[in-house]
């Protein structure tokens, strides 16, 4: 299995029946298609839709109906539309159960950087800074190391922050970590990954859970 597939298959397990969930743009959006049919969730799109449906058939495409990634979508039964201020009342007011977001760097104390690389064109943070402060649970998914083999799980983030101490759970292609006031704890190893490899590729300090699990 590729690293991306490992990450996505583990991330989808974070989604529980009855939740309202926001999936970030990019890799997190792919999770929508992996949610089991018996898990009934309402996916939120911050441009003003709760209850994102499948991508439309060619005959159903409607330019007035898009998701936050500007892709054409449909609305599922029970969906609602609302304006942007109300959309962020849901987010900032703590009414969204879970947000799954991409990451560039995560630090040992749960800081997240995922919106800007200095020296490259600034695109903007969109709704990411609101989501990390407002959603009840923040799960970040990303590769454990960058393309140069350097750890993206840092003692301190080097990139501009999206939020401080906001991450609850980090899922990488090597491992799963939980964050509490006590710091960062390794709770799961991906299939075939050894603890030593995680130690070697993680710059941040972390503790190892007594009930450390190896994923199948």
């Amino acid at each position, binding site marked *: 299995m590729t690293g991306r597939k490992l990450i996505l298959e583990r991330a989808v397990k974070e989604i529980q029946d009855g939740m309202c969930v926001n999936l970030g743009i990019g890799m997190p959006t792919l999770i929508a298609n992996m949610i089991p049919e018996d898990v009934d969730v309402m996916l939120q*799109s*911050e*441009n*003003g*839709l709760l209850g994102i449906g*499948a*991508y*439309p*058939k*060619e005959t159903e*495409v*409607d*330019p*007035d*109906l*898009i*998701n*936050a*990634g*500007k*892709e*054409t*979508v449909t*609305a599922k039964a029970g969906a609602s*539309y*609302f*304006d*942007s*201020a109300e*959309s*962020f009342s849901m*987010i*900032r007011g703590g009414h969204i159960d879970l947000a799954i977001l991409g990451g560039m760097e995560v630090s040992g104390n749960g*800081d997240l950087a995922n919106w800007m690389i200095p020296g490259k*064109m*600034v*695109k*903007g*943070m*969109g*709704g*990411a*800074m*609101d989501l990390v*402060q*407002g959603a009840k649970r923040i799960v970040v998914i990303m590769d454990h190391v960058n393309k140069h083999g350097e750890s993206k799980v840092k003692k301190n983030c080097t990139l*501009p*922050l*999206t*939020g*401080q*101490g906001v991450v609850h759970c980090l899922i990488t292609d090597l491992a799963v970590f939980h964050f509490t006031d006590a710091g960062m704890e390794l709770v799961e190893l991906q299939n075939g990954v050894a603890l030593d490899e995680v130690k070697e590729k993680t710059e941040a300090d972390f503790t190892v859970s007594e009930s450390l699990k190896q994923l199948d």
Partner: protein
Amino acid sequence: MGKVISSLDEVVQQIEDGATIVAGGFGLCGIPEKLISSLRDKGVKDLTVVSNNCGVDDWGLGLLLENRQIKKMVASYVGENKRFEQQFLSGELEVELVPQGTLAERLRAGGAGIPAFYTATGVGTEVAEGKEHKEFDGKTYIMEKGIVGDYAFVKAWKADPFGNLVFRKTARNFNPVIATAGKITIAEVEEIVGIGELDPDGIHTSGVYVQKVFVGENYQKRIEKLTTANS
């Protein structure tokens, strides 16, 4: 009441250099395309534009960039526009990036007569630099100010002659808050119906916020990313 206008020329002619325009839309969805084109044709300069995005190179607010009419852009995400990058890097264009929820709330506050508010969004990031910090119940918040524009550009689906508005699906997005946040609010719509024909329970924006209504024809409604079940 005389809110319904048959051409945008007269109202757009009043807009002067240096004006602040607040505009609805998310990406290219629900953008006031007729108003933007009319403002491009008029050619006023040094505008401050407040909108979630800045269009693409050849459509939406990108048309005003192309014509070098924007001095300052206030937005949450501008990554779809190459011309934006060129003008920003050359120093021609000033940019204020605002988290999307903060932008929506600043417009809502502006429209509701609330000069400022506190939010946790942006605490501990670049966004918080230079802003007042305050603790409530042990948590830190920053102060953000309301936004009011000289002119608000709104795109709605249907209107009545009083300016009551109904939006369609996710084309609603920022438009209702934008409508409240303009000294002069101009709504362009796809259809106008008679007074009393809109169900009062189903009106999204009350006509009290709207000064002018224009019916546009042949909306392009460009799609940024066409995704279908087969793709």
